[in-house]
Structures are given as structure tokens and as C-alpha cells.
């Protein structure tokens, strides 16, 4: 199991570059941070700063139409300004066709007495983008190890060597995706309709053991080489909090099948990233001159703390 670390680095740098490009493209006016659909008949506009109430409440300043037919202007019934004066909710007379992108023109935006000119922005539902944001959210922004502090036993146990770290991460991701999808399915279609959601812990942990056992049985026969490489980590998967935390998160929120898949995959990849980062540092630590009382776990904890501080920088970031 040998993966060139330079290739990995280049790959991750490329992914990050794409991310920044994508986020950069969305900005259409410097004063408007975000536009989105809300409910069936509303559009929410988020501004970078507070806007004047007199301007915001005047519905004649807004023009909205569906992108393919600019002649049909949609009828606005009310413009509601939030408490902090940064978000305006436009309510429409009829329900919006959210599959179509909408164009929104605002004339003479005034903020604190100053005019900021007119803005012309689009409002669209980006489902793929949303899925992607769920994935990145679980992988980096809410990384289960560094931002939610879960799965630490296995994290510290298997991050001594890069090869171990990658093996554990891959095994974990596979089992995670399998068991979470089964858990989501059972929860949505069996436990919830029959009001048996108090059994969630028993069912979810049972499903995890089952998937581990199934992967173990099948892999042992189908690919003994792979089993030799990854078999040892299978047992450790059950002892990892993340594997049970993801189904519980799925049960507590209303995600659909695709979003659940993305969340589970993101959680697994996030664990892999955390393990890889940590093992890279710990391989160096082996050679460093550390005070005797700090050797082994204590210094690993301090390093993990520094990583967590770094990951704190991602918090609050939204992609789409």
C-alpha cells in the first residue's frame, strides 16, 4: 500500500483551487452576499451590511422574473426586513417555480444614507452544489475528529504510520457508507412510521456489527490479499464513535437518500484526511527530541489540539 504523498498533495491543492474558483464565481454584486429561495413563495436576499428601511420596504424597487421569459414580471406582495437590517425576504403572490433560475433586479440600493447603485443578480437552486456543500461540510468544516471531537480512540491508535492510517481510513469509509445507508433506510421506512425511534441505538449498532461481519466474511473469500491488508482494521471500526454518530445525526435531521450518502461519505473521507495529516506529523515526531514525560500520547494530543485550532478557521464557512 504505497501512495505517493506528492501526488496526493497536488490533488488536494487542485480540489481546493476549484473550490475557491467556484465560490468566487458566485459573487455578482459586492454588496449582496447571498440570494436563495425560501418556502414555496419567498426569496431571501442577504446583504453585506445594513440597508435602509425605507428602501427595503418599497416593493417597487425590486423586479423579479424567470430567466427564460423576462417579459413576465412576478408580483411581489411584501418585502420584509429582518431585525439586523441585513436580510430582506420578498414574498410573492404565487408559488415560484424553483427549478428555473430567477433574475432579480434591485434599483438604487441605499445603505445608511448612501446610494450603492443598482444590482442585478440571479437566484437559483443548485442541488448539486448543495450536495457538494454537505460533502465538504462533513469532510472539512465539521470534520468529525477535529471539529466534533469524535472517534479519538481509534484516531490516536492508528495514526502512527501513514500506511496504517490510509488502510484504516479506507476500510472505515466503506463500512460507514454501507451501514449509514442501511440505517437511514430502516429509520425512515420502519422505525419512524411505527414510532419505534427509541430503538435507534440498538438497531444502528446492530447494523454496524452486521456490515462489519458481512464485509469480513465476503472479503476473506473474494480477495484474501485485500483482507490481509485491511482485515485488522475491521474490528476497530465498531469501536469508533463516528460510525454510530453519523446514523444518529441522519436520524435527528431530515436528509434525503442522496444527502445521507454524501454525509456518510464525507464523514469517512474527513476521518481519512484527519488520520493522514496526523500520521504525517507523528512520523516526524518519532525523530524529534521530546521531553520524556511528553513522549507518546501526550504530545499526540497537543498536536491534535493544534490541528483542531487550525480547523477552527473553517468554522462558519459556507460554500453555496
Amino acid at each position, binding site marked *: 500500500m504505497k501512495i505517493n504523498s506528492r501526488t496526493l498533495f497536488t490533488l488536494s491543492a487542485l480540489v481546493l483551487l476549484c473550490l475557491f474558483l467556484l465560490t468566487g464565481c458566485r459573487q455578482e454584486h459586492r454588496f449582496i452576499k447571498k440570494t436563495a429561495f425560501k418556502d414555496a413563495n419567498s426569496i431571501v436576499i442577504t446583504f453585506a451590511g445594513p440597508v435602509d428601511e425605507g428602501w427595503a420596504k418599497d416593493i417597487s424597487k425590486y423586479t423579479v422574473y424567470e430567466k427564460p421569459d423576462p417579459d413576465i414580471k412576478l408580483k411581489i406582495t411584501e418585502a420584509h426586513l429582518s431585525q439586523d437590517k441585513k436580510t430582506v425576504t420578498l414574498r410573492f403572490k404565487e408559488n415560484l417555480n424553483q427549478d428555473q433560475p430567477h433574475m432579480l433586479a434591485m434599483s438604487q440600493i441605499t445603505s445608511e444614507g448612501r446610494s450603492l447603485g443598482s444590482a442585478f443578480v440571479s437566484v437559483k437552486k443548485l442541488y448539486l452544489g448543495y450536495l457538494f456543500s454537505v460533502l465538504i461540510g462533513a469532510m472539512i468544516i465539521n470534520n468529525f475528529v477535529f471539529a466534533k471531537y469524535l472517534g479519538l480512540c481509534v484516531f490516536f491508535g492508528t495514526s502512527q504510520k501513514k500506511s496504517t492510517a490510509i488502510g484504516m481510513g479506507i476500510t472505515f469509509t466503506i463500512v460507514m457508507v454501507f451501514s449509514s445507508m442501511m440505517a437511514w433506510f*430502516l429509520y425512515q421506512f*420502519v*422505525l419512524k412510521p*411505527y*414510532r*419505534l425511534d427509541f*430503538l435507534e441505538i*440498538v*438497531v444502528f449498532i*446492530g447494523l454496524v456489527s*452486521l456490515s462489519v*461481519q*458481512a464485509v469480513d*466474511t*465476503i472479503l*476473506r*473469500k*473474494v480477495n484474501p490479499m485485500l483482507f490481509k491488508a485491511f482485515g485488522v482494521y475491521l474490528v476497530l471500526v465498531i469501536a469508533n464513535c463516528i460510525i454510530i454518530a453519523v446514523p444518529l445525526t441522519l436520524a435527528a435531521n431530515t436528509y434525503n437518500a442522496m444527502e445521507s450518502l454524501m454525509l456518510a461519505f464525507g464523514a469517512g473521507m474527513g476521518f481519512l484526511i484527519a488520520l493522514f495529516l496526523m500520521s504525517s506529523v507523528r512520523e516526524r515526531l518519532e525523530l524529534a527530541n521530546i521531553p520524556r514525560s511528553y513522549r507518546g500520547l501526550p504530545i499526540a494530543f497537543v498536536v491534535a489540539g493544534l490541528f483542531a485550532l487550525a480547523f477552527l478557521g473553517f468554522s462558519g464557512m459556507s460554500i453555496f
Partner: protein
Amino acid sequence: MDPTLVKLALGGLAVLGCIGIFFGIGLALAAYKFAVEANPKVEEVLEVLAGAQ
């Protein structure tokens, strides 16, 4: 006892039982189909070594 509670308990038993039987049979079939001839000596050795992780 409250009849709704009894219903809930019986429902839980039924659902858990069904899941258990379904996956139990599934795993048993898988174990049968993908059986690997284990060397009995390996298990004997492991038995002696057990506990040392």
C-alpha cells in the same frame, strides 16, 4: 397497562425480531457461500494466545 404501550412493545419486538431473522439468515448464507476452510491448528494456537491482542 396502557394498551398503546403494549402495542408499542410488541411492535418493537416484532420489528427487531424480523430484522434479526432477516439479517441472521443473510449472514448465515453468506458465511456458507463464502466459507473458507480454516486450519483448525490456527484456532488452537489463537486460543492459547488469546487476550494478548
